[in-house]
């Protein structure tokens, strides 16, 4: 291990190769650290809970084929839901304008005072009735659910004036950090107070994309059936294990109520596990891509080290022979190459840390990513040092097998 000085001296004669390996290690480290960080962020994002009984939920996108008044829509919706609830295997069904991970929907600003100009925060609005909590399987942790008498039918162009609301715990905490949300009033931009009557633990908003970060986890349920003449969503919760059987009967059941409707063949009836899958396609894809990049990059770096070290070993056979003849053991030779690689790799890794942090800062400002955690840099450094040692092992073993008699040979 005390060969560092001669190694450094020797390296000066292989400047190009040394610099190339170090540079490669540095760049690999920079990319791999950031790729790890991206993978971790994406996996964390896609494993956030929606708060609903995902395995048993079916979403029906029902569109009306003719123009109808709000009253007509309301009557038809009631008939439809009644028919759906009577299907075997259905636990409950409700109408809603939105559901978690849908992609888009109604979001609005919340104020704490009627004359407040700047909103306190934003929220996703789910318009439904007293059946929504049971249909989605959302847990009420404080206060009470809506009562049937409180539910109103609302046209999509009516003014927003609900008497009460149920909010998620995250929203309640944001609005009233002291924990007194229950019974308090909030305002949607006018003088009309909306009383918080219940708090549920988790209910993801309609979007979890970057643009929706202003209301992440902050959902409000309002006691209105939001009726629109173009259509609405029916949410169905099935008994465990019945989701496929029920999904197969939905279209027929609804068309039996009224034929002037459109339920798309493509995405008219969706099972929630598929919705979740699609909502996180990007995140999963990005994580997979970064994973592949890491593996291939590390393999290429390893191959490069093997290639260059093999070349060096070939070039120095004679010197190795001389050293062996002068009494160096096999272990000494092996050690020499391992130490040499450790020196080069450490140099590369130091430079790589700078590059990794630089690349991350740039990504943070440009793409609103999270800061790189130091743990990933450390993992990256250890990984690359081990990779270097592993790659150099085979050529170094070969070097250690060079017989002392090589010293006497020409070439």
């Amino acid at each position: 291990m005390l060969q560092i000085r001669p190694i450094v001296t020797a390296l000066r004669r292989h400047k190009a190769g040394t610099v190339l390996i170090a540079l490669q290690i540095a760049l690999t480290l920079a990319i791999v650290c950031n790729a790890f960080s991206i993978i971790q962020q994406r996996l964390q994002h896609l494993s956030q809970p929606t708060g609903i009984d995902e395995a048993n939920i079916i979403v029906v996108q029902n569109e009306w084929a003719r123009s109808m008044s709000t009253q007509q829509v309301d009557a038809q919706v009631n008939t439809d839901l009644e028919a759906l609830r009577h299907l075997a295997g259905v636990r409950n069904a409700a109408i809603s304008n939105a559901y978690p991970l849908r992609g888009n929907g109604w979001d609005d600003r919340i104020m704490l005072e009627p004359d407040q100009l700047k909103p306190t925060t934003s929220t996703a609005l789910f318009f439904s009735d007293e059946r929504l909590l049971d249909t989605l399987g959302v847990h009420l942790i404080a206060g009470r659910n809506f009562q049937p008498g409180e539910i109103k039918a609302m046209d999509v162009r009516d003014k927003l004036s609900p008497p009460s609301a149920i909010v998620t715990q995250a929203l309640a905490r944001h609005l009233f950090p002291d924990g007194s949300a229950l019974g308090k009033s909030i305002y949607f931009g006018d003088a009309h107070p909306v009383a918080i009557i219940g708090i549920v633990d988790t209910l993801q908003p309609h979007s979890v994309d970057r643009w929706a970060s202003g209301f992440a986890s902050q959902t409000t349920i309002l006691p209105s059936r939001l009726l629109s003449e173009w259509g609405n969503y029916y949410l169905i919760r099935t008994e465990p294990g019945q989701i496929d059987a029920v999904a197969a009967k939905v279209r027929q059941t609804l068309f039996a109520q009224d034929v002037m409707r459109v339920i798309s063949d493509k995405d008219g009836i969706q099972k929630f596990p598929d919705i979740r899958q699609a909502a996180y396609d990007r995140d999963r894809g990005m994580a997979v891509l970064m994973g592949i990049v890491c593996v291939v990059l590390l393999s290429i770096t390893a191959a490069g080290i093997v290639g260059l070290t093999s070349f060096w070993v070939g070039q120095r056979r004679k010197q190795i022979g001389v050293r062996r003849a002068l009494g160096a053991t096999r272990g000494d030779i092996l050690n020499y190459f391992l130490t040499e690689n450790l020196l080069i790799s450490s140099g590369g890794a130091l430079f790589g840390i700078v590059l990794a942090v630089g690349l991350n800062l740039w990504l943070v400002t440009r793409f609103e990513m999270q800061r790189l955690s130091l743990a990933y840099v450390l993992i990256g450094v250890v990984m690359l040092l081990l990779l270097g040692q592993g790659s150099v092992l085979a050529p170094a073993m070969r070097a250690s097998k060079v017989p002392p008699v090589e010293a006497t040979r020409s070439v």
Partner: protein
Amino acid sequence: MFGYYVQLGVRSLGRNPWLTALMVMAIGFGVAASMITYSVFRAVSGNPIPEKSERLHVPQLDNWGPQHARSLGEPPEALTYTDSTALWKAHQARMQTIFYEVTLSVIPEHGGGSLPFNVSGYAATGDFFQMFDVPFLYGSGWSQADDEGHADVAVIGRSLNERLFQGANSVGREINMRGHSYRIVGVTDQWDPKPRYFDLFSMFTVNGMGDASEIYVPFSKAIDLKIDTGGRNSCGGASSLNAGWDGWLHGECVWISMWVQLDTPTETESYREYLRNYAAQMQQSGRFAWAPNIRLRNVTEWLDYEKVVPPESRISLIVALGFFAICLINTIGLLLAKFMRRAAEIGVRRALGASRREVYLQFLIEASTVGLAGGVLGVLLTTIGMFGVGLIFEPQIAKLAHLDASLVLLTIVVAMAATVLAAFYPTWKAAQVQPAWQLKSN
């Protein structure tokens, strides 16, 4: 000599099979990664209407005020009914169109077995077709007189025409949508610019991608029939929302996109001035309690402002380029090893009278054969990778990325050029070999 060097190059590929394979693989992986991500980037960042992108503009107007403005005091991304119709009626631009997305259910004629189905498209004013260069199979768009006369006319897309009329010329026929009958005046050919630059406001076209629009009806008629927007409706807070259809129509919700065609910088400037004056008028009349805050962006500026290129695409392109750079550094190292192994051979050649130029030529040609092999592997990997694009991007984007002749050519050219570039240093080192020293040491 050239042919001989090529021959030498090919032969030397087999001399250090290990090293060669490593290099070819590094180049192949590097170039494939870059090309796959580039093909996606190319698909989403292309200029959708190159000949007009500097002339088509989006007017924007701040009707919510500084309290509600988006970040950095930007006005909303669309217009209210009040403003869009006022600007359209003023006719201050050479051509102009206002429109919003609609989803209508088509009710097939022969009631019987065929169920209603939905089609998406736009309620627009007549200049829409000419401004965006919409190609027609049959007929044409409608006139301004039709717009002003609230005519019951419609333009349908090619696939709807095939579904309803088996592809025949349907101009003059009727189509029933939501119980209302329209006379078909035109059938568009397949038209689906990507990204859908003219309708980035609508959230239903994810990142400006979505299915082709199949139906167009006059804006004025759609408003008469109270056809609600099938796209986005943004009210900047509930306080600006008034009850009922009329309340909504005349409120401060933005849901209508507007484009104007301005052919010269002078026209653009005077339109900008007009827009500013309009906002100033609104301030004087007491509707806006703030100074005019307007924007007039052309297609390129609009795509940029709306951040059409998904961050995934940029990040993966950057990562892929970094990846390629590492592969090239790897290649430099391996080429160095490969070339310097032949120091003795170079020495002999130099001693026998080969000039440095000859050595350069020989080794660069040898490197480019490595590059060619890497490029071929790259094309192969790119082809495989194309199937994987769908894993990372939404299907709408993934289906845009495809391997065409230009991409194959680019893959091979980039692979060869990069390898030759990477070979400069090793070649220079090889050419530096001193014949005398080399001969002596042997």
